[in-house]
């Protein structure tokens, strides 16, 4: 048995990838996006925000109080469908963008890409450029290698820990939580979450890297279904690069374009730069591949080489299958228009829902056991539970009346004033009495729930029914 496991018949070890650094326009865009994303992620918990309620963190997910603070917006558990709305929008946006421009999300915005980028940057600063890293890996273990490798992993762990810790800070008052965290007073979930995210960040961005995209990520798999011939892809121009007789390295008599063209050689000088910079470890010249995240670093690499040779850029570039075949990529087509409309509709719906939210949420429910009761003077009584929730940060005085039942009496027992403290939820038992009418049935009426002394808040009408015993009795 021991012998068998050593052979690892069913296990393929990862082929290490040593991406070379590259400069260029896409790299600049990516650094900019990375700086923005890191800036937002790491600094947002520290942003203070003035609120009447006293909670001064701009973005705070307060699980215990069941309130999510987003700048001037306070989200309550009842608003959970907004989250669904955001997820729907994110999904459709992904479909839309992928259909038009390919895996833009993967290459530029995905946190796997962003964090891996930083981890590779650390690797490069500590261990040196690609050849140095390859050398270091081949080297036998010694003080030099130990220090370089150790320092890399230490820095990785630091970044991973900062990532995990920052995530935790979104769920409590950041300054307080940070102090508690290092004095051992923070709640257990804070430590568990920070440690878990440190571990996953370290493993995913440091060790697993491109395997996450290739083997773990479902989006990577299903995005390829959304591609069509008009979708922008990063591609190598086969015809120009290979010529009639294939690519060839620069050499005697092959240094100028016209010399090469005369020999039927392509423009690709087979320098391998595009392969070396690829964080996925693929060769873009083999055509569109599942692993490619459209990070566009090979474009920068090839452009740099072409520039240095004084040849035209664009041997590797953003193109589409249609353009490769000499046509033009269409933007306006049923798919993009369809996705675009659905996207627009869901955004409008979400914005409308958020904008039209009320600071007072109400619901009424008739007590059904019994539906009605006959009183000693022959009147009929129904009773209702009215739920009130003050979602504002100020106390709210409420008056409850009814409209639609002529001559009915609304009875709340000895309760005279209802005042809801900020965030308070309350259920009030209301009895409605009415003369017995000749015909029975369900009589519709409205409870009018009016915040007193608040001109900015509209009275809420809640439709309910009064059960009148039937005329057949």
């Amino acid at each position, binding site marked *: 048995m021991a012998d068998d496991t050593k052979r690892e018949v069913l296990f*393929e070890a990862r082929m290490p990838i040593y991406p070379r650094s590259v400069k260029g326009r896409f790299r600049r865009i990516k650094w900019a996006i990375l700086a923005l994303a890191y800036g937002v992620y790491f600094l947002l918990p520290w942003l203070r925000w003035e609120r009447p309620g006293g909670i001064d963190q701009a973005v705070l997910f307060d699980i215990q109080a069941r309130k999510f603070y987003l700048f001037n917006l306070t989200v309550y558990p009842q608003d959970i469908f907004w989250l669904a709305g955001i997820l729907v929008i994110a999904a459709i946006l992904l479909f839309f963008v992928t259909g038009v421009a390919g895996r833009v999300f993967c290459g530029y915005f995905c946190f796997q890409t962003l964090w891996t980028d930083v981890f590779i940057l650390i690797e490069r600063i500590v261990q040196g450029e690609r050849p140095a890293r390859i050398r270091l890996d081949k080297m036998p273990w010694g003080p030099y290698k130990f220090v370089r490798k150790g320092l890399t992993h230490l820095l990785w762990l630091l970044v991973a820990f900062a990532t995990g810790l920052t995530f935790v800070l979104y769920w409590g008052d950041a300054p307080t939580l940070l102090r508690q965290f290092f004095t051992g007073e923070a709640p257990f979930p804070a430590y568990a979450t920070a440690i878990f995210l440190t571990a996953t960040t370290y493993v995913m961005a440091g060790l697993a890297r491109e395997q996450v995209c290739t083997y773990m990520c479902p989006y990577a798999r299903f995005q390829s279904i959304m591609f069509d011939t008009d979708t922008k892809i990063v591609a190598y121009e086969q015809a120009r690069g290979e010529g009639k007789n294939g690519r060839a390295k620069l050499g005697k008599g092959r240094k100028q374009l016209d010399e090469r063209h005369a020999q039927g050689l392509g423009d690709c000088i087979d320098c391998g730069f595009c392969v070396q910079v690829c964080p996925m470890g693929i060769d873009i010249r083999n055509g569109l591949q599942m692993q490619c995240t459209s990070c566009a670093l090979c474009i920068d690499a090839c452009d740099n080489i072409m520039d240095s040779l004084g040849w035209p850029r664009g041997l590797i570039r953003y193109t589409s299958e249609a353009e490769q075949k000499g046509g033009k990529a269409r933007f306006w087509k049923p798919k993009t228009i369809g996705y675009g409309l659905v996207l627009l509709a869901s955004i409008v719906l979400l914005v409308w829902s958020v904008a039209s939210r009320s600071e007072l949420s109400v619901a009424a429910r008739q007590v059904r056991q*019994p539906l009605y009761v006959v009183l000693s003077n022959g009147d009929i009584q129904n009773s209702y539970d009215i739920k009130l929730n003050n979602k504002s940060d100020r106390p709210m005085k409420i008056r409850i009346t009814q409209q639609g039942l002529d001559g009915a009496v609304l009875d709340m027992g000895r309760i005279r004033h209802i005042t809801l403290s900020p965030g308070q939820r309350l259920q009030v038992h209301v009895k409605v009495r009415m003369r017995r009418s000749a015909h029975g049935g369900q009589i519709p009426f409205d409870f009018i729930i009016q915040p007193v002394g608040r001109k900015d808040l509209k009275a809420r009408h809640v439709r309910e029914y009064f059960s009148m015993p039937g005329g057949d009795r």
Partner: protein
Amino acid sequence: MSEQKTSKQSGAVQTTGHAWDGDIQEFNNPLPRWWLWSFYATVLFSVIYWVLFPAWPVGKTYTKGVMNDITYELNGKKVTTHWNTRALLMRDMQQGEDAVKQRKYMQKVASLSFSQVLANPEMMDFTRKVGKVLFADNCAACHGSGGQGKVGLFPNLVDDDWLWGGSISDIQATITHGRQGFMPSFRTAFTKKQLDDVVDYVLSLSGHKVDAARAARGKRIFNGQTGGCYYCHTKAGTGMKSAGSANLTDSIWTVADVNGQRDLEGKRAEVRRVILNGISRKMPAWKDRLSPVEIKLLSLYVYDLGGGKK
């Protein structure tokens, strides 16, 4: 992945190399490494579990685990035991976040007067929620889940007619001490004619259109020595809460199902039945089963159901 690998090995599946009877061989399909490590991890987990939690039977007892003491209160005494789900529940019921919160509310209800609770929306919200559970556990078997009762058997608690008084202290007294409702049978006291006369008078009290002559005769029997009904029901027919006697002048009937009958003959039959058979009903006392604060909550709940009276 695995398929690629196997195909690389010259297209044949590996064997263990053993051969029996010359040619019987055994395929070798080793487990993936991640699976193997996961398996070792579960083994390690179980060993740690044995140490920390109750696990192995030893003779008549079992290993209790270490560092897992749970302390809770039982009959006023502190009990410390090894980890078990029952103790966990006990502790949670006593020291859990919700239990502590509920106790605070309970203490508040105990310290406030009835009218203070009734005027406070937050306390009434609590009363209604706790009361609903108490009612379902203790009262609903007879009075129905919503307190609607059952005509002829158990009084309706949602309406505003009360045999034993509808003030909050009356309700509290009823729940605490229970009630014994009794009306004698008049089977031997009345002749058939007298019975018919009393029935019509009783129905006339609540505004039913009956035979006027009969009702007039019935009134004399009701308020005279022959029937003596007025002892309990009073001469006006409004009943007495000290005797638990029904008010016969309103539209609510708890024993005779008058409201359930369409025609006068049906209504008469119902009243006649009750006068002939009498009534004997009993509600048990709850003072030994519920704590004072629970009875207080239950009283408030019943009072608020629909017909509480000042």
